[in-house]
């Protein structure tokens, strides 16, 4: 697994504006938003509903476009890429963990984890090895053949994390990863994310409502009405 530590910011948003338009109505989300995150950081983004947390995550994932501004991740300008290039970028550099896991129900846990590897020119035997390794890493060794719909929420989220890291991305985006879990499972998932950040050097941006989840990060950014409202908190 690779670690990506850079001198310049790993993620740099500069003058990013985003407005949603519905008919004649406009809903501004961000106006000239700036943000930097260093490589290897674990950042929690908190804020009330409608503050722009999910939009920020969508922009970082390249699944939404900013109206203006620059979005640079690992030295690449996301806002300059076309759809196909962004898909290729996601396949190589990004892992995503969703609140509701978003696993494909017709596939086994191992097959779900293997999905990102299908996009890479890797022999099947190597794919299977990598899948087994990450399932072991998330504590689901030997459960690969199980259908995720028969797993608990915590287990499904761990499958989702395994899927997010199997292609060895440098950046993990987590959208309320503990939002659907009980406290114990949430703590397990947060411990797992902390491990991935500390031991494997993954840069993690996690959107959350949960202050306890935010405590697992080493920085917290507070968004309100599209702006960072106070100085970030840095974990001791």
């Amino acid at each position, binding site marked *: 697994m690779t670690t990506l530590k850079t001198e310049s910011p790993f993620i740099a948003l500069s003058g990013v504006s985003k407005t949603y338009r519905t008919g004649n109505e406009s809903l501004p989300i961000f106006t000239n938003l700036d943000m930097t995150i260093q490589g290897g950081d674990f950042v929690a983004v908190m804020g009330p509903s409608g503050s722009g947390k999910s939009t920020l995550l*969508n922009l970082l*994932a390249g*699944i*939404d476009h900013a109206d203006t501004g620059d979005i640079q991740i690992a030295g690449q300008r996301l806002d300059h890429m076309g*759809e*196909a290039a962004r*898909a*290729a*970028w*996601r*396949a*190589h550099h*990004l892992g*995503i963990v*969703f609140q*509701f896991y*978003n696993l*494909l*129900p*017709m*596939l086994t846990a*191992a*097959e779900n984890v*293997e*999905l*990102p590897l*299908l*996009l890479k020119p890797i022999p*099947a035997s190597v794919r299977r090895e990598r899948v087994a390794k990450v399932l072991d890493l998330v504590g689901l060794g030997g459960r690969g053949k199980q259908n995720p719909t028969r797993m608990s929420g915590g287990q499904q989220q761990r499958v989702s994390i395994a*899927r997010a890291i199997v292609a060895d991305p440098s950046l993990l985006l987590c959208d309320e990863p503990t939002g659907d879990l009980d406290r114990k499972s949430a703590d397990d998932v947060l411990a797992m994310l902390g491990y991935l950040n500390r031991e494997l050097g993954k840069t993690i941006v996690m959107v959350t409502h949960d202050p306890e989840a935010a405590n697992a990060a080493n920085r917290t950014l507070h968004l309100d009405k599209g702006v960072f409202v106070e100085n970030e908190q840095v974990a001791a």
Partner: protein
Amino acid sequence: MTFLGLIRKSAVRKPLRGSLLIVSVAMAFLIYGLTASFIAGSQGTAAASDDLLGVMNAAGRAQPLPLAYLPRITELQGVAAVSPITRLRGSVGDARNVVAVSAGNPDKLLAVSGKELGLTNAMVDALDDGRDKVLVGRALAQAQGWSIDDTLTVTAFRTRKADGSRDWRFEIAGIFDGKSPSTDTYFILAQYDYINNARGKNRDTVSTFALRPEPDVSPQQLAPRIDALFANSAAPTRTLSEKQFLSAFLSQYADVKRVVTLVVSVSFVTLLMIVVNTLVFALRERRFEIGVLKVLGFRSSRIMMMVLAEALFVFLVGGTIGICLAKLASLAAPPALGLVLDTNVALRAFALIFLLGLTSGALPALSAMRTPILSAFRTR
């Protein structure tokens, strides 16, 4: 897991719906296989030759031609062999058990259509061994349970003997198989001289002259030259290839090919609507998953190919089952039905499977390709 595995699992993710789709495709291709086999079989014209010519009375195929035309046709440049043919239709035993007898000159028959009918010198010698000897096609022999040395009596519908009897007794000297399974072998080959000498009326006339052109002569160019020979005679001729003749003969009753094409087309259009409708609905249920795949890095073009491949998978499995069932049916059907599912029919069926699979998958595939990720996520 491979992409094919992913496609297969997606196609049958709802087993009942997937199975019903496959069954409906299988049924459509069963119908196609049977109708195409009918066209290709002995009831159709696919096996008929374009190289063999038949010279008939221009006034209609029921009108005879004088045997005296034979030397003039034989001497015409470009003609390799000619046999006079007179036809006799009648029944054996039960009046509904209709058989057709084509009577020709044994040696000339071998030269004209020996290759197509699978005739050998030994068969022709056996036919020539006695005037009432006949060769019976394999399909007819199997249908009637006849074998060599059996005797049979054909009660002719029209052709009477000089004594007024309509019963013609024959002895089976051999059984011919035809060049291929699609060759029509549901008839009897007899000797022209036997019928001609025994009949009370229309002696020294023929129903048709069957002829084979020289190898380097075009049948299409030879035909008008033959007709030109007799253009000013009392009985002008009309020369057609065997295939043209059979097509014209069948179209007297109905344009079989058009009817079959219509039936198949209607069933395929209906099938297409059902499958497209089902795939579109299935895709709507999966918009969220398509969004997930796109977030994981699957390009829109790859998603489109996957949805197309899913439709193709349904058609390939269903179509193959349908064609296999049609093949079994063609083997089990009585020879009189003349069902032949040969390589050509199978190849056409698989071309249709691919065409319909891609056509029915096109709309859902385009829709999947164009689905924006955020819009897909809102469907949850």
